[in-house]
C-alpha cells in the first residue's frame, strides 16, 4: 500500500553513488535515515510492519496445509527450512526478512533498484542471507520457470496495470503444487472511499496519487485470472486495518483489503 510512496522518497536522492562507494557523507546520512525510517516499526511503513502478524502466519500455515511443510516441523523455529520463496515487489524486505528467519530460501525482486540497495544493506546489518535482485517479474520469470515452492505478491497488485501478464509471470515461476500468496485491495466503493478519499485526501495518511481506483481488483476477477492460469484458490480472507491501534485483523468481509492463497495444479 505504501510502497510507491517510499519509492518516491527514495527517488528524490539517487543512492547509486552510495552503493558505488563514492564517499559523500551527506548521501550516506540520508541513506541511513531512510533505512531507519523504513525499518521503524512505528514509522511511515508501520502498516506493512504490522501486516506481518497476519501474512507471515498465512504463508507458514498455507504451506503447511499444502503439505510443503511437514506438520512435525511446526514446533521448529526454522519451519520453512528447505522451502524456496519468491517475494515479488519486496521493497526494503519487510516481509522477506521474517521468512528468512523462519529458515526459508528467499529471493526478493523489485523493479526499483534503490529499494533493492536498501534491502541489501539492511539484510547485511541483520546478517541475513537474502537473494535480492532488481528486476521485473516478467524478466525474472523468463529464466526461472517452475523454480519456487511459493511466490508472494503482497501489496503490489494494486499498483500493476497489466494484471494478467503480471500474474502469469508469477505463476510461471511456481513449481507445480506450489503456493501463490496475494494480498491486495478490492475494487469497491468502500475501498475507494477508505483508501483514496479518506487516506489520501482527508487524513493525508498517504500522498495523493498513491492509489488509483481503476487498478484495484475484485476477488472474483482475480480468481478468474488464476483459474485461467491453472491455479486453484484455497482461501480468501478479508483483512481489516485499525488505523488507531495500527493492527490488522482477519475478517470475513473482503470489501477493502483481502488475502488469497492459491495452488498451481500439475500440468493438465
Amino acid at each position, binding site marked *: 500500500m505504501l510502497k510507491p510512496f517510499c519509492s518516491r522518497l527514495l527517488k528524490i536522492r539517487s543512492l547509486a553513488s552510495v552503493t558505488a562507494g563514492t564517499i559523500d557523507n551527506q548521501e550516506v546520512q540520508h541513506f541511513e535515515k531512510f533505512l531507519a525510517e523504513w525499518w521503524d*516499526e512505528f514509522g511511515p511503513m508501520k502498516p506493512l510492519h504490522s501486516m*506481518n*502478524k497476519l501474512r507471515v*502466519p498465512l504463508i507458514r500455515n498455507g504451506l503447511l496445509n499444502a503439505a510443503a511443510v511437514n506438520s512435525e516441523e511446526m514446533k*521448529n523455529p526454522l519451519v520453512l527450512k528447505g522451502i524456496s520463496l519468491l517475494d515479488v515487489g519486496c521493497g526494503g524486505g519487510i516481509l522477506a526478512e521474517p*521468512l528468512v*528467519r523462519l529458515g526459508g530460501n528467499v529471493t526478493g525482486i523489485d523493479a526499483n533498484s534503490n529499494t533493492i540497495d536498501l534491502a541489501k544493506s539492511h539484510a547485511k546489518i541483520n546478517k541475513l542471507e537474502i537473494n535480492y535482485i532488481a528486476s521485473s517479474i516478467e524478466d525474472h520469470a523468463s529464466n526461472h520457470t517452475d523454480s519456487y515452492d511459493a511466490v508472494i505478491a503482497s501489496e503490489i497488485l494494486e499498483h500493476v496495470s497489466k494484471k494478467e501478464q503480471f500474474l502469469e509471470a508469477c505463476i510461471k515461476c511456481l513449481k507445480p503444487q506450489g503456493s501463490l500468496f496475494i494480498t491486495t485491495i478490492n475494487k469497491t466503493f468502500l475501498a475507494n472511499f477508505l483508501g483514496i478519499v479518506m487516506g489520501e485526501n482527508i487524513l493525508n495518511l498517504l500522498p495523493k496519487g498513491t492509489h488509483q481506483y481503476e487498478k484495484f481488483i475484485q476477488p472474483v476477477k482475480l480468481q478468474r485470472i488464476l483459474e485461467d492460469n491453472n491455479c486453484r484458490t484455497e482461501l480468501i480472507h478479508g483483512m481489516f486495518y485499525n488505523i488507531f491501534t495500527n493492527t490488522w485483523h482477519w475478517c470475513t468481509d473482503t470489501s477493502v483489503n483481502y488475502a488469497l492463497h492459491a495452488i498451481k495444479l500439475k500440468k493438465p
Partner: protein
Amino acid sequence: MFLIILKSKSPFAKSIITRTCTKPGRWYSTTGNKHYDIIIAGGGMIGTTLACTLGKNPLLQNKRILLLEAGKEKAWALPDKYTNRVVSINPGTHKLLNSINAWKHIENNRFAIVKRLQVWDAVSDASITFGDQTSPEDVSYIVENDLLIAAVNNELKQLDNVKVQYSAKVTDYHLPEYHESSSSVRLDDGNTYSCELLLGCDGVNSQVRKAMKVNYLTWNYDQMGVVATLNLSELTDSLSSLVWSTTPDHAKELLKMTEDQFVDAVNNAIWKNYGRSLVVDQATKTFDTLLRLMNCPSDTVRQFPPKIAKIEEGSRAAFPLGFGHAVNYIGKGVVLVGDAAHRIHPLAGQGVNLGFGDITCLNRVLGNTVHSGSKLDNLSYLKEYETERQRHNIPTMLAVEGLHRLYNSDFTPLVLLRSLGLQATHALSPLKNAIIHQAAT
C-alpha cells in the same frame, strides 16, 4: 493478620536435591563471544523460572540465553525444618511448574496442600475463609522459596542454551536508542554483554525499571510483615505460615520476644476482640438480617480460630511492605517481569503468582514472535504481553489493596466497614468464587 492453615505432606522426605556446577554450553567456550539473544537480569524465583521456561520452549531452541544473578551460587539441601519464606502456589503456577518438569522435584521433597485459607480480623469477630474443605480441588500449595528455586535449577542446569552466571551484579544498563538494536549490561567485574532482548527480573528495587525511566506508582505502608512458621495444637502435623502486618515498632518488639512470648502474642491477637464497639456489633447484626432478607446464605457457623502451640525455631523475620506498579511493562528491547513490574501486599499471598502468570504469558508471546519470523524485540508482540498481564494484574492489585485498607484502620467507621465487607464476602459465595477464580489465573 494473615494466617494460612496448611496440612503438610511428606514433611521430612529423604530425597534431597543437590546442585552441581552449571555445565558450560557449547557456545560459551569461545572467549569474546558476548552477545546473547536474551539476557535475564536477576535470578530470584521469577528470573530462574523464566530462564528455564524459555530454555525449554522448542520455538526458542536456537536462542542463547544468559541469566545473571548477583547472589552466590548456593548448594542446596533440604533443611529439617520448614523455612519461614514460603509462597502459596495457585493452580496456574502449579501448571507452569509441571510443564517445565520442576514440580516433580518439589513433590519428591515437601510441600503442603492448603485446604483452608483464613483471614482473621483482629478487631471484630468476622472472618473470611477461602477454599471448601469438601472440594477435591485444592486452593493452593505451600512451597518454600528455596525449594522452589532449587527444583527449577535442577531442570535449568540440564539446558545447553541457557547459561547461568552467579556473583554477577549488574552495575549499568544501556537500553537501545531509536537507531540501535541491542541492549547492553555491565557487571561489577567490568565485563559487558549485549542482547536483543533484556528481561528485568531484578525485584522490587529494579534497576532495569529505573533505566527504562518508566512511571512507577509506589507507596510504603509504613508497615512490616512479620513472618513465622507455627505449629497448631489441634493437629500434630499441621504447620501454618503466618504473615502479620503491623507497625515497624511493634514488629521490632515481636522479633525481640522469646519464642513463648511470641506464641502468646499471636494467640492474643487472634482471640482478643480489642476495639470491638457497640457500633460494630450493631452494624454486623443489621447486616446479617439484611442478608437473610435477601435470601443469601447467612454465616451463622463461625470458625473458631485455632490455638497456636509453638513456633518453629528461628523462623521469625520481618520485611517492609509496600505497593508498586510500573505503568509500562515493556520498552524498546526490554521487558519487566515479576516484582520488578508489580509489588503487592502479601495479605492474600498472591505476589509471586502474578509473576509466574507473567512468565506463562511472556513465554507464549515470545514463541509466537519467533514463529512469525519476527525479532524478539518486536514491540507489537511485546505489547500483547503488556496488555494481557496488566489486564489481569491491576484488578488483582487493587482488590488486595482494598482488602488491606479495610484491615488497617482503627478509626471506627472504617472498622465497621471492614466487618461488613468481610461478612458480605463470606456469605455471598459467587463473589468469593470470583475472587478465588481471579487468584487462580
